[in-house]
């Protein structure tokens, strides 16, 4: 079930974050177990007393995955643009997961700064993957300025709440059928990923739900299977729900069928 995204062909629809794992070794094993081919990373100001960026980057490079740097921590479009430029120089990729936060409590994306930053980054030749809300108009505007992928949340980052606004997500999928949609943030367990994939989303990005599991490596496998199951279910087409029972066994001619209602 390969799919093409921003010019790259991927066989896994599960994308994975690199933060919050108990150790770098477990991070690496979990990413391998997930089968993910896209891994998110970030930038930090180098502390004079601590090194570490080099060893982390070496660990990520060993995985051979596509690297998707983010602009975490930015609240203004200008800061996000500068962070993206630094990411492109360090990681050698024009891919950028654009995060511009507007509220510290919910970590909700700031729609206006996000759109402003996306517009500028597209002009500068970046391939912009915006982390956004499920707001339809915002998503349409981000598509219109040239974002080839959209990454709506389904709940606040790290909340694990799942698809809290499934109606809006369904609407988004229906109204934007021709741009890949990757659910980013809010998924807490594999069943949430199944639900998102059954709705027709193109993939999910998971970090906390894997990294904070009791066994991140096993949870990575669980998410891999969930994403695959959800995608297959979407392609197969789920049956429409009914308000009344419908026997699965044909009752006509069964031994004690009364024929009465």
């Amino acid at each position: 079930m390969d799919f093409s995204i921003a010019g790259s062909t991927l066989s896994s629809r599960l994308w994975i974050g690199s933060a919050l794992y108990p150790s770098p070794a477990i991070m690496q094993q979990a990413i391998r177990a997930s089968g993910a081919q896209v891994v998110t990373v970030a930038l930090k100001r180098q502390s004079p007393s601590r090194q570490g960026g080099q060893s982390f980057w070496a660990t990520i490079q060993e995985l051979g995955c596509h690297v998707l740097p983010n602009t975490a921590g930015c609240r203004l479009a200008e800061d996000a643009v500068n962070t993206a430029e630094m990411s492109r120089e360090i990681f050698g990729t024009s891919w950028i997961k654009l995060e511009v936060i507007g509220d510290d409590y919910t970590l909700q994306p700031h729609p206006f700064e996000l759109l402003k930053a996306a517009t500028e980054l597209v002009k500068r030749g970046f391939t912009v993957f915006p982390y956004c809300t499920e707001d339809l108009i915002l998503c349409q505007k981000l598509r219109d300025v040239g974002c080839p992928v959209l990454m709506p949340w389904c709940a606040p980052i790290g909340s694990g709440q799942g698809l809290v606004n499934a109606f809006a997500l369904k609407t988004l999928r229906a109204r934007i059928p021709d741009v890949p949609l990757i659910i980013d943030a809010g998924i807490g367990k594999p069943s949430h990923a199944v639900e998102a994939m059954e709705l027709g989303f193109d993939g999910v990005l998971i970090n906390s739900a894997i990294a904070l599991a009791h066994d991140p490596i096993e949870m990575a496998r669980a998410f891999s299977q969930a994403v695959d199951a959800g995608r297959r279910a979407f392609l197969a087409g789920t049956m429409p729900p009914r308000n009344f029972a419908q026997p699965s066994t044909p009752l006509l001619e069964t031994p004690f069928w009364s024929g009465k209602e």
Partner: protein
Amino acid sequence: MKIFLNGLPQDFEVTATVQDALAVCEQAVGPFAVALNREFLPRSLFAHTPLQEGDHLDLVVPMQGG
């Protein structure tokens, strides 16, 4: 003159460039990028960018992210 290197004040010659400052900076190894006064500075400009009193020079490196 005094500039702020990753937030900490350090003294440099008044003729120092960004490249001069990075040459004595232990953190400037491996993959890193630079922002001068919060603006990205491409590597190709390090040698041609003079520092000025009170400048903020920040080095960023890869880290874990979601």
